[in-house]
């Protein structure tokens, strides 16, 4: 009895499936006390509907043929082929764009006289004035240290 309680305790506190399966196999399936706390096959059978008690859906065959005709394998296959063709075309086009862009970037970086510092967004940033509502606005420009990000904060002048 104490052993059953201990097994139950381990089962409850350690929700590890292989361990639980081991406990079931090694003890609970063979222990009469533990088995008494489980639903028997006969008891379970009374809760479910069995195939000999259930009626077939009305006109099941008619519904199946109707749905099958709506999507015949031929049209399905052709639409699948079409879909696959489009997917291949899209994938190839995307791969080509990525390859060309990558190649161009690599060529630009490798070019003589290329200075990465010069192409930084912050270095190229220039602002003359900011208008808000048709009038010059109060403007703050902020660049966090060590980044190429520039924040522009504009407030309408009172």
């Amino acid at each position, binding site marked *: 009895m104490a052993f059953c309680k201990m097994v139950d305790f381990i089962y409850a506190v350690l929700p590890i499936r292989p361990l639980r399966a081991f406990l079931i196999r090694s003890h609970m399936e063979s222990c009469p006390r533990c088995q008494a706390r489980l*639903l028997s096959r006969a008891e379970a059978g009374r809760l479910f*509907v069995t195939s000999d008690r259930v009626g077939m*859906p009305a006109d099941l065959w008619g519904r199946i043929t109707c749905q099958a005709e709506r999507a015949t394998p031929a049209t399905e296959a052709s639409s699948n082929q079409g879909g696959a063709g489009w997917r291949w075309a899209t994938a190839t086009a995307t791969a080509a764009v990525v390859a060309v862009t990558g190649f161009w970037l690599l060529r630009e970086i490798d070019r003589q006289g290329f200075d990465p510092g010069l192409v930084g967004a912050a270095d190229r940033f220039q602002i003359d004035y900011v208008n808000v509502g048709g009038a010059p606005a109060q403007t703050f420009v902020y660049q966090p240290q060590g980044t190429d990000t520039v924040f522009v904060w504009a407030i309408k002048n009172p």
Partner: protein
Amino acid sequence: MDEQKRPAVEEKEIIEGCLRGSPVSSRAMVDAYGKLVMAVALNVVGNRQDAEDVCQETFIQVFRHLDRYDPMRNFRTWLLTIVYRRSIDMIKKKRRFSEFTARARFEPAVAERGGNPHFADPEPLPSALLTKLSPRERTALCLWANEGYTARDISEVLECSASTARVYLFNARRKIKALLENEHGLLQNG
């Protein structure tokens, strides 16, 4: 003829006929396994309308993908795997629209379809106690109780390990037993 005792030869002939595209064999397949599919679907989803939809979708899928069936496998287990998957899809779909169905429950005229009132349906439904189980536990218990499946067979249908199937089955048996005992105790005390 009892579905469980269906000769393997007849089953093989039906499958081969379906693969050749014979409507007679397809019809024979529906007649042979319709009740089994319907019963399992009804036990998992819990209501007749959804079970009928699951049944229909199952056979559609079976006819479309019968070429993927491995003859080394048990056909009933393969079929029940599809029933289980379609039932789970149906449960998920219902969960997504749970708000709507909760409203529809109070509007039977809206909930019933096609002028086929099932509220007067004398056919049996699975016990309400089974709603306390997860769909996996319910399926495991149903296959064990109705089909005599072992944990290994159940694991093939649920597509999990035999250990996991054993745990689902054990939990289901224990939960329902406790609920039944609780119900019995309440009846005796009250």
